Every structure is written in structure tokens, then in C-alpha cells.
């Protein structure tokens, strides 16, 4: 039984559907920024997106080729491990299913890697089946650099650190390899509905 905090009443939100807010989260109308270093600014003519690792043949797209892939526009809720959640965010990008369409692999895991040396690990099955995208547009405008532009991974059913900003590649791996935050005490999987914030959760 947690101790009561004398004099704390809280501010319950009558306008929030509790079924959309994972435990320990609060709603924000803003779009806060969380990154561990400076925001990278890779010129688009030097940008590419690569799928490599345990695959028969690596594939890579230039910015133009990436933009030419079929896109989806979708609206999802996002949940950051630092406690904010934002409902009904609208994105446009390429489904990871589309990126993996011609990829043969025996891998069960993916390391997403980014400009700025960021990495995060996700089971492959969490990136497929229409559950993950590489997005370049937020709210009908090009994705701002501080929010991960030119393109970021979006895996809305996991805490938002799994949605790697400034994405440059997906490396398919046979073994699960902890990424940047996963190596320093954050949860390896990160399901907000099970409040998997830290390694022992």
C-alpha cells in the first residue's frame, strides 16, 4: 500500500478516456522532445535508408527512392517513457512491411540505428503486420529535425524511445542486442500498457 501524500488531490481529467492512457502517463497537448545529444542535420542528398544484417541481400533507398515508395497516412496515440502521452497524432510514411517485402531473413530481432549513433532494439514481429512505419511527415508537414526528421521509425504500441529518430537503417539480427537506452537500465521491450519502463519492470 503506497503512502498517502497529505494534501495531494490531483487533477483528474474528466475529458480523457482512461482506456487510452497507459498507467503512470499524463496527457500533453505539446510535443516534447527527448534525445540524448545534439540534433543531427544530414543533408538529404547524403541520406539513405538501409536494411542489412542477417538478410540475403542488403537493400538501400536514397531519399528520392524512399519518397517514391507507397505511403500510408494514419492516426495513433504515442507514449513516452518520461510520462507524457499524446493522442491522435497523424503521420505519413512507409510501412515497415513495405520495406521488408523483398527481404529474406532468418532474424527475429531488429536494431534500428540512426544518425547521432542512436540504436534501439525491437523484435521483428513488432515491426511487421502493419504495426510500424518509417515516417517523414507529421501533421501534414515535413517532420521537424528535433522530432526526428527527415525520417524516423514509428512503433506506436511501444514506448516512444523505440521510435528511433533520424533513422538510417534497420539491421536484422538473430540475437537480441540491447540498444542505447536498453543498455543503461531501460526495459528491453517497453510496453506502455504493462508499464515496462525500466529493466526490472
Amino acid at each position, binding site marked *: 500500500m503506497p503512502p498517502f501524500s497529505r494534501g495531494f*488531490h490531483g487533477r483528474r481529467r474528466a475529458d480523457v478516456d482512461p482506456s487510452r492512457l497507459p498507467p503512470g502517463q499524463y496527457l500533453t497537448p505539446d510535443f516534447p522532445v527527448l534525445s540524448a545529444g545534439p540534433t543531427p542535420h544530414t543533408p538529404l542528398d547524403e541520406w539513405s535508408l538501409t536494411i542489412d544484417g542477417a538478410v540475403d541481400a542488403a537493400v538501400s533507398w536514397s531519399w528520392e527512392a524512399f519518397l517514391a515508395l507507397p505511403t500510408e497516412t494514419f492516426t495513433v496515440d504515442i507514449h513516452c517513457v518520461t510520462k507524457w502521452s499524446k493522442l491522435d497524432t497523424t503521420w505519413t510514411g512507409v510501412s515497415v512491411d513495405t520495406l521488408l517485402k523483398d527481404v529474406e531473413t532468418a532474424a527475429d530481432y531488429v536494431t534500428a540505428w540512426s544518425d547521432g549513433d542512436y540504436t534501439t532494439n525491437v523484435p521483428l514481429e513488432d515491426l511487421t503486420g502493419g504495426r510500424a512505419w518509417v515516417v517523414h511527415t507529421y501533421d501534414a508537414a515535413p517532420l521537424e529535425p528535433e522530432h526526428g526528421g527527415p525520417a524516423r521509425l514509428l512503433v506506436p504500441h511501444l514506448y516512444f524511445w523505440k521510435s528511433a529518430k533520424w533513422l538510417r537503417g534497420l539491421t536484422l539480427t538473430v540475437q537480441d542486442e540491447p540498444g542505447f537506452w536498453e543498455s543503461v537500465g531501460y526495459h528491453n521491450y517497453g510496453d506502455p500498457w504493462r508499464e515496462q519502463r525500466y529493466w526490472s519492470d
Partner: protein
Amino acid sequence: MTRRAPVVWRTATVRGVVAESHHARTLVLDVPEWPGHRAGQHVDLRLTAEDGYQAQRSYSIASAPELDALEITVELIDDGEVSPYLVEEVRPGDQFEVRGPIGGHFTWSVPDGGPLLLIGGGSGLVPLMSMLRHRAARRSEVETRLLVSARGAEDALHSDELASLEPSAGLHVAWTFTRTPPPGWTGWARRVDAAMLAELGPGPDAGARSFVCGPTPFVERVAELLVEAGHDPRAIHAERFGPTGG
């Protein structure tokens, strides 16, 4: 890999409160079986109302790992849900829960060495204070430069303590006031810019570890200035907080 204690909720009892400015105060907490922390880490804090309603937020740890208490310094956020309680309501003896320590990137310990470049905007000074207090507790003489950007003298946290720390060998503390400098102030009175960082030093060739903490636009701008000045982006550690929810 270091051994980690499980990140579990522990009851914190308020030992004391210290007013730091008209809108910020430090809570001195007793947390039985606190596993210890590294300077720069943060805690999650959970309040529970009598009817069971709970709210969680994250706060940087202000105290040195060497202190026998856990301190957080909380700034009041208008319209916040948790910070008004912590800044205006809490008194000694009150209880809530904390868990941690959390974060392994924005941290510094004496053996990590220097030089150190610490740049804080507003209450972004808090985790940097933990590093400076740790440095002082260990009598470290690692070359350290601290730049604090505050709106005015009444927003300047810990100015007396920083003045008392500064005679320490190797420590240089600089302030810039962006809105209302104190009367007679002859130092910097503008937003952090490239010229200011060049004058502050150390230069990009010194191999400094930089820690930048503050509101998102502040951190974005300062980190970008450091990169443009030639600092290695991998040695720039950033901690951003948004004006949200609090």
C-alpha cells in the same frame, strides 16, 4: 556492466524543504534503502491521493551521491499537477514514493575525468549541481566550466552555493542574464551565443565532456552552437525538458 538494483518504488519522507527562489524549492528526502546514484541521474516520483488516484513525474537528482539524503529541486510549472504540490504544499514529514536512479547517459563521476563543460538553462542547473557537489565532495580539481543562463537574479538558483564552490581549483562559474540582470551587473546579459561559448572555453580541441540541460529550445540551440564550434557531437550530452504537464 555494473550491477543494478531493481527499480522499485520506495517510500520517501520529507526531512526538510529549502526555498531556492520564488518558484523553486529543494526537497530533502529520506529514502530507506536508496541504492545510490551517479551525478546527473533522475528519479521517478509518485503521489497518491487519499482516494488512490496517482500521478507520476520525473525529477533530476540535485544532491551528490555522497550526501546522506536524496535531494530534488523542483520548479513550479503554472497549471502543473504535481509541481504546485511539491513547491507549495509539501512539508517535513509528508510522504510519497520515488524510484530510481534512472538514466545512464547524462551522468558524470570523478573518474570519468574532464575537462567538463556544464551549461544549464533555468532549472536545467539541477543535475549539473549534482555533478558539482559530487566534484566538491571528492575534492576533485577536474577543470570545470559552468555557464548558467537565467532570466533574472530572482530566478538564479544556487548562486550563493556556487560562489562558495568557486574558489575550488579548476572551477569557473559564469552567468548570463537574459531578461533582468541584477543592478550593476557588468557580465553577460544575452542569450547564449557562439562568442560567449568561445570566451567561456574550453575550445573544441580540449576534448571536453559537455552536459547541456534546460528547456528544449535552449538545449537545441546550445548543442547546435557546440557542434558548429567543432565539439565532437558524441561528447555532447543533452537533457531536454518541455514546459509540459509538470
